[in-house]
């Protein structure tokens, strides 16, 4: 068991950025908006979190800045998809292109710099529990925040009035409209919350995990998060499990490389991407065509108030 602890603990840490993005995307998709811009949002978050931390010296300011940037850019996605009724797939791709380019353009000056980001803060008492303590409660505050958010999201979606509205706006926006609520306003709100969380996930990478800024540092984590939403059938708890699974594979692959193996690095680096496809095929085969039942019914479709379906 002893040998497992560092690996499991690393799985939690490297899974956390993916988890934030996945949680955000679950909220956005539950509201019926598909945001494929996660990769770009994460990169913008990583860059803005890093630069704001460097300028102010306070990692919390950096994280807050990342959330604000994520919300602002995803508001653009909401504008195109909700107000203008644009194609959500292509708009998401545009966000990713823009975010990748923008973070690289502005981030040029920050490559090679270092910051003092968030450190480890063991939870008193809980960290002393054998096995569970070091795996779950010997991390930075953002990991704990993600635990809280997963619980909160589960509770919010399934047992609150607001959560019911959220599910309704993704399943049947016309009903929400008839109930006198603004579909557009709700979709804006959840797209922005989702974008903020994705950017926070990106900022976790630069401000906490590596404490440096590298171009394209998310390396496809945003896309993995999109896949994990499907893997988790839009359930935050399952999504958390998936994120840690991927975090674990990433951590394991680093360890194998460090241990000196004859397997060439590019082949090891493929693992998370291959796993994504395998997991996605697995879940789709099992559910058959019924996988769509897990997806919000109006996902990806613009809502026009004045038109009949």
């Amino acid at each position, binding site marked *: 068991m002893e040998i497992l602890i560092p690996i499991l603990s690393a799985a939690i840490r490297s899974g956390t950025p993916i988890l934030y993005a996945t949680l955000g995307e679950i909220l956005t998709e539950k509201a019926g908006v598909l945001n*494929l811009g996660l990769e*770009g949002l994460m990169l913008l978050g990583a860059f803005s979190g890093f630069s704001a931390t460097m300028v102010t010296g306070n990692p919390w300011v950096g994280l807050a800045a990342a959330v604000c940037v994520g919300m602002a850019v995803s508001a*653009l996605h909401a504008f*195109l998809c909700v107000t*203008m*009724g*644009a*194609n959500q*797939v*292509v*708009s998401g*791709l*545009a*966000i*990713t*292109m*823009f*975010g*990748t*380019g*923008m973070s*690289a*353009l502005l981030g*040029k000056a920050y490559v090679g710099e270092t910051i003092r980001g968030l450190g480890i803060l063991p939870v008193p008492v809980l960290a002393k529990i054998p096995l569970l303590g070091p795996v779950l409660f010997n991390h930075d505050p953002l990991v704990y925040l993600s635990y809280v958010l997963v619980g909160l999201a589960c509770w919010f979606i399934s047992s609150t009035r607001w959560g019911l509205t959220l599910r309704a706006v993704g399943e049947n926006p016309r009903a929400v409209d008839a109930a006198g609520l603004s579909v557009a306003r709700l979709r804006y709100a959840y797209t922005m919350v989702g974008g903020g969380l994705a950017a926070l996930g990106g900022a976790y990478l630069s401000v906490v995990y590596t404490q440096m800024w590298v*171009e394209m540092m998310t390396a*496809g984590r945003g*896309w993995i998060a*999109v*896949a994990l939403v*499907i893997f988790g059938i839009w359930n935050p708890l399952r999504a958390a499990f998936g994120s840690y699974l991927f975090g674990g594979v990433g951590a394991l692959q680093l360890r194998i490389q460090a241990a000196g193996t004859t397997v*060439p690095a*590019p*082949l090891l*680096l*493929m693992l998370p*991407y*291959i796993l*994504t*496809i395998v997991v*996605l*095929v697995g879940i*789709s*085969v099992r559910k*058959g*065509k019924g*996988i*769509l039942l897990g997806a919000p019914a109006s996902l990806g479709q613009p809502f026009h108030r004045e*038109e009949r379906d």
Partner: protein
Amino acid sequence: MKPRLRIERRLEVPSWMNWSIPAGAVGVALAAGAVLLSLLGVSPLAAYKAMIQGSLGDAWGISETIVKAIPLTLAGLAVGLAFTMVVWNIGAEGQIVMGALAAVAVVRYAFVDNSLVMFSLMFLMACLAGGLWAGFAGFLKARWNVNETITTLMMNYIAILLADYFIYGPWRDPSSLGFPMTTPFPEAARLPVLGGTRVHVGIFLAVGLAILFRVLYRWTKWGFELRVIGNNPNAARYAGINDLKNVVLAMFLSGAVAGIAGMTEVAGLQGRLQPGFSGGYGFTAIIVAWLARLNPMATILVSFLLGVLLVGGDTLQVVMRLPLASVQVLQGLILFCVLGAEFFRNYRIVFIERGE
């Protein structure tokens, strides 16, 4: 009487809007880019002027723009074919890489000192490699409804890492002094170039395929079936159109055409494989397809315009020391504006008098 605005759906789209709206969108995007450039402390006028001069200012610049337009046209046609069926093939980048890998493999393992034989072999294998790479995602989509956006994207990463494996590993040129690159192609495996430029015969493939696609979409039963599946999958199923077969076939062809782009890049232009050799053509192709409204002939024109952007971006990098990422930002802005502009194509704003 206070005038009031009302937004209503257009019943018919005036034909002048087909070109003026994308053109307007690009204009707005360039204006937004200008604001951004001035915020970065660069004069936008000087920057745009440098871009135009670099890409269209002389014969060499124009030829370089065409060099970029060749893979863009091919990849744009590839992506457009899948998009016509509302199958989101985001994996052109990976399919380009697979096509290039196939070409290198042919030269490495089946070299014959005859240009025609080499060209045919490379062409076939590149089609097959790109086609199977995309067709696999198409099969998963058609058979089990596996989300193709994600599978094609993940396969991009896998293809690029596979290329890295070969370039750094078994295929590395022993005489490259440790640089990661494959052995240069022998003369017989190189595509001929036009005049003193770097424009290779891939240009004929690109234009020829665009015409072929046009004929396919417009005048064949299969092209009609593709459009029906894209516009109304339920109607297609009801009419007995086999969507499983068609999705797999369309993805295979889409990947095959992207694979050709990879082959012409490596055999026509670079003559060997190096890390990051495609440089994002597969992603830019998405903008090409969308700007061209999936129209094959418009794809050629749009590819040329985006070629101007890419060559201009290279000039910016040299002349104004702006990172290449600024081109990516511009591309993102163009895509945003094109998407937003669709609204004005589908809807019109009318002023109405109260009491009407």
